[in-house]
């Protein structure tokens, strides 16, 4: 019975949430009703009864979709995102909406208006962000897979910090219809999985062209699950040695060096590649992402939906007060930065310049992929840091994304794969970046690695 297993999943989610704060809402009534309908219909579906958690910036009809923000605290979406519609049709059961940095702006989950999710390996530490709640829901054993979103690493970084798999697909692979916009040219829906196979299953269902998102591409969707188990021997893995230097934690470096050796032993060919403009990616990202955010978040004005400040004298004052009271500090900082870089007299110096460097970053990747099938780097420069450790220093927080943002700038797919624990028993992950539409290659490399070098340790907080 699907209903029995879904009820157990819901019990686990509820039981662990007091400590982990990974769910902003647990949708018991909806999930049980859907499970009953699946049991009654008895159809054979690709994700029949598969429990899934969804980041709270993906619209779910009739359910709260808060984006981790006070300004949308009570907002209920009127429609399902395309990804949700496809999951429902495939028999998956949405069990709840997960915690996140406010409007997906952050790398630690600490900018959530509802308190951070906690890392199940050590609850005094961050789970990463912005899709921290989804990462925790998978890492703590509540669900096998969850949806997150990525603008600069918001799936891969928390996957790494929580010891699970996290995929950012090619831009245009998964429809963004119903994903609340942050920076539209960088945003993607991404997938967390306990194994690479979980990601393959979910991706196969939700990927593909959608008439409601003009940036979704008309590219055939392979059967990712069937393509798993491919040969590693002869695959060329590129290593950009220059990125293994300054700023990278010694223990993380050692583990990732070990991964390179292990791939060599599995028969892969290791080649040197260069990404000469990698060091500029954070700067490019924080210009483009904030500029697009300042435009996208202009819609929150207290008129059509969401929070409205009370007792504002006049319309203009109402806009100002609503946004002042409704947004948290990180969101305001980014809206203002975006407003600044787009303002008259500065546009060419910042925004146009950043878009040119973005073109250089894409060219660098295209050149690198003539010599290799995937590029291997760490996912995050360090293991999970302590709650509060970086929350007063926005620039230090931004530098967490140093390995991940470039894939969003170029639009290429990338996956984070767990590869072991630090001496403090905190997960370490590595990243594989692939050429456009090469999700199958990445999933294969990831699955082959974890098949040969599995990690048996479980987080301290885990639902069995």
């Amino acid at each position, binding site marked *: 019975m699907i209903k029995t297993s879904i009820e157990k999943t819901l019990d686990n989610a509820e039981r662990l949430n007091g400590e982990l704060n990974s769910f902003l809402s647990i949708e018991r009534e909806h999930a049980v009703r859907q499970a009953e309908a699946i049991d009654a219909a008895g159809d054979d579906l690709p994700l029949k009864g598969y429990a899934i958690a969804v980041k709270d910036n993906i619209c779910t009809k009739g359910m709260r979709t808060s984006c981790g923000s006070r300004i949308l605290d009570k907002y209920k979406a009127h429609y399902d995102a395309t990804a949700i519609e496809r999951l429902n049709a495939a028999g998956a059961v949405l069990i709840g909406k997960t915690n996140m940095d406010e409007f997906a702006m952050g790398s630690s989950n600490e900018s959530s208006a509802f308190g951070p999710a906690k890392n199940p390996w050590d609850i005094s530490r961050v789970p990463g962000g912005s899709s921290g709640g989804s990462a925790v829901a998978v890492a703590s054993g509540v669900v096998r897979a969850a949806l997150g979103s990525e603008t600069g690493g918001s799936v891969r970084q928390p996957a790494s910090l929580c010891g699970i798999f996290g995929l950012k697909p090619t831009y245009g692979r998964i429809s963004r219809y119903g994903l609340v916009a942050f920076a539209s040219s960088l945003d993607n829906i991404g997938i967390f999985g306990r194994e690479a196979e979980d990601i393959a299953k979910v991706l196969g269902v939700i990927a593909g062209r959608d008439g409601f998102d003009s940036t979704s591409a008309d590219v055939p969707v392979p059967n990712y699950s069937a393509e798993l188990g491919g040969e590693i021997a002869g695959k060329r893995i590129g290593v950009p040695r220059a990125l293994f230097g300054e700023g990278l934690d010694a223990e993380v470096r050692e583990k990732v060096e070990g991964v390179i050796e292990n791939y060599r032993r599995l028969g892969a060919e290791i080649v040197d590649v260069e990404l000469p403009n990698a060091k500029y990616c954070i700067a490019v990202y924080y210009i483009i992402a904030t500029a697009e955010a300042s435009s996208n978040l202009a819609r929150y004005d207290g008129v059509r939906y969401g929070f409205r400040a009370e007792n504002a004298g*006049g319309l203009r004052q109402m806009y100002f007060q609503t946004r002042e009271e409704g947004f948290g500090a990180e969101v*305001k900082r980014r809206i*203002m930065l975006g407003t600044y870089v787009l303002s008259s007299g500065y546009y060419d110096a910042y925004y146009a310049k950043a878009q040119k*460097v973005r073109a250089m970053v894409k060219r660098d990747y295209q050149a690198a992929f003539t010599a290799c099938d995937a590029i291997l780097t760490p996912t995050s420069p360090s293991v999970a840091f302590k709650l509060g450790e970086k929350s007063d220093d926005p620039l230090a927080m931004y530098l967490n994304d140093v390995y991940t943002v470039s894939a969003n700038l170029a639009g290429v797919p990338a996956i984070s794969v767990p590869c072991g624990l630090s001496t403090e028993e905190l997960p370490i992950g590595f990243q594989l970046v692939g050429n456009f539409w090469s999700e199958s290659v990445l999933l294969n490399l990831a699955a082959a690695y974890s098949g040969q070098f599995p990690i048996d340790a479980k987080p301290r907080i885990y639902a069995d």
Partner: protein
Amino acid sequence: MDVRKVAKLAHLEITDDEVALYTPQMAEIVKYVEQLNELETVDFEPMLGGLTDEGAATETDRADVVRPSFSQEEALSEAPAAVAGHFQVPKVL
């Protein structure tokens, strides 16, 4: 950077405490992103979309047919204030 002026452009009414907090933070971030100035970019066009060739080539027109949409009631149901089929805002004049 005049943070108060930028806040006004962004429709944010920020407090004096926030001005004191954001001014040095934003100055630091702006200084950081200005490292892009050391790069020569004359050979590159700004990348304003078209990330993938396949995406750029995708036919995005939909057939121009009438399809059901939200009812007026649904469209207004999340509004902080609505009256007689309209969004309601504080008095403008």
